[in-house]
């Protein structure tokens, strides 16, 4: 029998130690078992000893020992063993033996996370699912973040020219402000599609991205907000995974056709139809919420504040939040400046919660989060609620309720102190025209700090828990 040739790739999040230990371990084992091996390393300094197309084509099998994305889709169609970097280090001989014995499974472009760990001793299944959902969300959020920050700060800058300076019909119109606002708004419009695109990309690589992007655009245009975007991302990713399974039987020679024609065509069609149907009820939900809210317009301050606060922080730009905002602006037109004060307070609070939390509980946030938190002081102060979305999207089930509590506190205090805000936007920039400006700021600060402490303690607990049990989320952004 001719010499067995194996190619392998290793990688770990930090790329200082384990990547290279796995490399050495595989080489050592290969030597012992008398097989030829080439190991590519994804370390701190980038990819070294990179596998060429020819290397891969000539190999009898592939070993992927990595805890980060090492572009495994390159190995499509090759017998592949895919494991964590730790197994690459400790079980190198078994891995190579699996390939020699021809027991390796032919690699198909797929999401591997759940699959390669089911043989692992210590991890249980449920954790894997949670972990991979978190990983997909993180991928979406980290790509979305720059759009939120860049777009948000530009919009905030345009407010400095006056709250209505971007409106050509207004006397304070300023072309530079209008341009800043337009550019910033474009960044914001990309936010949800990018979120969806990269959630799907994390699930199903490049074909997933295309489908997620279109799904996200539909969610965004349909008014489904970032929660709709998250849904679109997961649907998009799984459509491609499913298509991959359905098209498995197709002859290999048609692989090119699959990725350039079939995946995008069928994928976009499917996600388009599903998402269109899903966003259909958004208008109804929005209108329903507006009606619901109108029943409480004259309710007591605590109840009204609770409802307005919870609605404003619930989906930040989705149908529920918009219902509160639209009601607020409509009532402004009727001369009711009281209602809007609570809505504004509730919309300013979520970014400030994240901002204060990253300052007060610095230790439990990574660098990217701390930077985004700093920017959120600006976005919060200018009523750009979207700044909180990257934080919320990472862990919506926990973070959204926290934001809702903080916003409710701000809104309740605002209503109790009878504050009046006559402007629909602008945050603290409109303070000169606010009746009870100081009390308003205090109300918002209290709500933000309450939220920040709950959020901070949650992060602290998660951090400590993570430290006890091994593993946990690996933060791809921290040190790639």
């Amino acid at each position, binding site marked *: 029998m001719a010499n067995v040739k194996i190619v392998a790739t290793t990688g*770990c*999040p*930090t790329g*200082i*130690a*384990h*990547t*290279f*230990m796995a*490399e*050495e*371990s595989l080489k*050592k084992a290969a030597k012992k078992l008398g097989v030829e091996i080439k190991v590519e390393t994804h*370390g*701190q*300094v980038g990819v070294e000893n990179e596998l060429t197309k020819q290397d891969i084509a000539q190999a009898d099998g592939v070993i992927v020992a990595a*805890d980060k994305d090492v572009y495994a889709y390159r190995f499509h169609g090759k017998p592949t063993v895919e494991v*964590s970097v*730790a197994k690459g*280090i*400790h079980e190198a001989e078994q891995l190579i033996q699996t390939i020699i014995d021809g027991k390796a499974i032919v690699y198909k472009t797929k999401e591997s996370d759940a699959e390669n760990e089911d043989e692992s001793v210590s991890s249980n299944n449920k954790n894997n699912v949670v972990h991979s959902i978190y990983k997909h969300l993180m991928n979406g959020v980290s790509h979305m973040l720059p759009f939120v920050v860049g777009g948000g700060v530009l919009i905030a800058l345009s407010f400095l020219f006056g709250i209505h300076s971007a409106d050509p019909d207004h006397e304070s119109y300023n072309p530079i402000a209008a341009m800043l606002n337009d550019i910033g708004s474009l960044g914001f419009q990309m936010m949800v599609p990018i979120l969806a695109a990269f959630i799907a990309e994390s699930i199903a690589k490049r074909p997933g991205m295309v489908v997620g992007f279109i799904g996200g655009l539909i969610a965004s245009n349909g008014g489904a907000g970032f929660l709709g975007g998250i849904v679109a991302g997961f649907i998009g990713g799984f459509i491609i995974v499913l298509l991959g399974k359905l098209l498995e039987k197709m002859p290999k020679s048609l692989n090119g056709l699959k990725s350039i024609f079939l995946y995008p065509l069928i994928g976009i069609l499917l996600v388009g139809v599903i998402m269109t149907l899903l966003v259909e009820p958004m208008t109804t939900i929005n209108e329903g919420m507006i009606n619901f809210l109108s029943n409480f317009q004259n309710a007591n301050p605590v109840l009204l504040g609770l409802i307005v606060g919870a609605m404003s922080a619930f989906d930040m730009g989705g149908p529920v939040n918009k219902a509160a905002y639209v009601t607020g602006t409509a009532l402004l037109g009727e001369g009711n400046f009281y209602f809007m004060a609570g809505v504004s307070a509730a919309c300013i609070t979520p970014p400030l919660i994240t901002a204060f939390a990253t300052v007060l509980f610095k*230790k439990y946030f*990574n660098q990217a989060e701390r930077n985004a938190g700093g920017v959120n002081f600006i976005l919060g102060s200018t009523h750009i609620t979207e700044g909180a979305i990257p934080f919320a999207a990472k862990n919506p089930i926990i973070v959204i309720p926290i934001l809702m509590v903080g916003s409710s506190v701000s809104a309740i205090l605002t209503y109790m102190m009878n504050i009046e805000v006559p402007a629909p936007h602008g945050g603290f920039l409109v303070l000169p025209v606010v009746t009870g400006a100081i009390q308003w700021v205090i109300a918002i600060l209290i709500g933000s700090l309450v939220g920040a402490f709950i959020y901070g303690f949650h992060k602290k607990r998660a*951090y400590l828990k*993570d*430290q006890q049990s*091994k*593993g*946990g989320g*690996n*933060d791809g952004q*921290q*040190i790639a």
Partner: protein
Amino acid sequence: MDNKLLDINQIKLKQQLTTQEEVFEQIAAIAVTQGIASDPEEVVVGLQKREQESTTGFQDGFAIPHAQVDAIKRPAIVVVSSKEGIEWNALDRKPATFFIALLVPKREAGTTHIQSLASISRMLIYEEKREVLAHAEDANTVMEELAGAFA
């Protein structure tokens, strides 16, 4: 060459340590005394963060904690061993006693240092090397053995 990776003063054997936290604090303290890092706390947090992602415990009592944070001014290796075994979630479930910490500045451009650090990790794959280190009675032996990895 003033910024060498390893120095005899960066090796402290048979320390009285009982928890992971104490090990990290010891590593950070050595790093600060030797002018490798400016802020011990940041080094500890960096090491903990990495540990959180997945254990750096290897096998036979060896662990390679590492960190890449702003407070680290130059790349360096700090070696600590403890008298008692410390739980490290290592894959072989043995407690750890020998810690080879790899400290890297946030902005480490030079690839040579990373490669030197990587070669330390590679070395641990070999059982005979591990044995020499585990049985080393003094810092000089460890120093010589590790220096061999750079060759």
